[in-house]
């Protein structure tokens, strides 16, 4: 679309949407949300950017090769976190027994494995949503 109002408002609003998405991801163990919801919010902000500025401009800002690498990196990050439990001696995906730091109750750095894993999940969901949208909207 070539509308000036849409482009200006999008440029102003997208950083706030992404900030809200990062907040939902990082507070996954304290309030509702977590990896899926936060990743969907960040993905939605990038879809808004695509709708306002066109697919070509978005491909220059967030190239498809970068999103592919983030997708792969999300799963490998999750598997590596699980293997920490095996390396210490307990089962896969152990939390407190494997020695992840459980800080004060109610703060952000508590819950050990959970916040680290949700960062991986959130990034993967966001990159998947942007990839799906670009595939569907491209004219073959």
């Amino acid at each position, binding site marked *: 679309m070539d509308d000036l109002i849409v482009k200006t408002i999008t440029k102003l609003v997208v950083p706030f949407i992404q900030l809200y998405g990062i907040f939902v991801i990082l507070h996954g163990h304290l309030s509702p949300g977590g990896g899926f919801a936060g990743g969907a919010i960040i993905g939605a902000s990038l879809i808004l950017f695509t709708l306002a500025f066109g697919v070509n401009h978005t491909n220059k800002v967030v190239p498809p090769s970068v999103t*592919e690498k983030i*997708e*792969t990196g999300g*799963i*490998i990050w999750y*598997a590596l976190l*699980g*293997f920490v*439990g*095996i390396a210490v001696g*307990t*089962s*896969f*995906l*152990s*939390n407190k*027994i494997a020695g992840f730091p459980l800080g004060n109750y109610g703060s952000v750095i508590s819950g050990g494995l959970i916040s680290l894993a949700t960062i991986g999940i959130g990034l993967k969901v966001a990159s998947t949503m942007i990839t799906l949208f670009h595939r569907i909207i491209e004219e073959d």
Partner: protein
Amino acid sequence: MISNHLPVYILILLLISAVTTPAIKPSSKKFRPKLVGTLTIASLLALTMFIVVWTNGPFYYNFGNWDSVIGIEFFVDEYTSLFVLAVLLISLLIIIFSLEDILHDIPKEKTPHYYTLMLLMVFSMLGMIMTNDLFNLYVFMEILSLTSCGVISIKRNKANIMASFKYLMLGTIGSVSILLGIAMLYMVTGHLNMGATSQTISSVWQMYPRNILISLSFILTGLGLKAAIFPLHVWLPDAHSAAPTPSSAILSGIVIKIYAFSMIKILFRVIGIDIIKAISINEYLTYFAVISIVMGSVFAIGQKDIKRLLAYSSVSQIGYVFLGIGIATEMGLVAGMYHIIAHAMMKSTLFLSAGAVIYRTGIRKVNEFDGLGYELPLTLGAFSIAALGMIGIPGVNGFMSKWYLGLAAFEIGKPIFIIFILISSFLNAVYFLPIVISAFLKESNRREQIMIRDDIPFTMKAPLVVLGAACIVTGLFPNIIVNVIQRALPTFMTFVF
């Protein structure tokens, strides 16, 4: 220390290999060795797990060291590890076959995506076999459903996309029914773990009999829809005949059996054999199984396309497995579980040899098979061995599964099932024997009567030879598999938590 975590190693190896496959260009030298190497290492790990379970007994694996009741756990017994090993070996052979064969269906740039989907399919199948938790079963089942639709529609053809859409819609109805059934079970018992549920189920049965009946009907309908029992099989012929050859081999050989095995797990471990005999649900399963056996063969007789014929024959063969489950004695379960592995080998051989014929000559119609035995002797030899097994000639493993089914039917005093098994063997012969005879004995006016060597690549010849030999070996020595099943049977008949 390494032997405790073997299920996790196998699964994570497959997952990471599936995710990093698109990063390698298909024309580089590292692509094929990486694929084959991953599955070989996974098969070696599965063999190690089988040896460990055979010597030490079954074991539980808890994720995150949580207790069984609140966490997810895997339960690996003797038959589970044998099934995992069989799935991995057959998938390895099918992927070796597909290295050359897939190039005439999809362009070369898309082959990394195809192999990502295949590796994710194997990953989800292994997860479904090993799990002991009802919701974990549902999650792996969804991964399997989506990726199996993906390997059909990766070929951009009108018929493929329509068949894949039909499979997606009907498969989703099945998944949603299963989720509703699991929700109703959770509502009454309060547990999602199969062991914990089976402990509380007998007291729940006194209080809420109708709830368990409804939830069981939803779960059985959903699983029957995905495993293609007779009235609910309408997606199977289109999907399995339009797909590329390696996809139809793995779909028809292994994927529909996984749902039958999940039905065995839910019926015998969660619900327990007393409640099953009280509602007599096994009798209704045998009725549907018998109808499926006969009608599948009847539909297959009139088909002209070779792949559609093999797809309808799958409907008939899955009826044997359900007949074994429905008889619900020890011998019946032995017959059903033996037929799962035996039919996987036979059906993969049939589909792969049909694919080799299509690759070399482009012939798909059954009445044009004259004289092909002289042009492609190895391919049609493997086809004939597997076809004789489906008919039930002694020496191939198909005969042994019919033998065990007959023994089981005789034990419970219903010899009418033996008559139906004989009728279906006769019907199988009606549509398989003309192909074998016309390939080797008829003259054709297009080619000479001199037997020449097969003109197909080595990566396509080797899996056919290995699978054909495996059919004969397990037919002559069935005790390799039956001993494993009989050691694992106590965990099905009386599940002690």
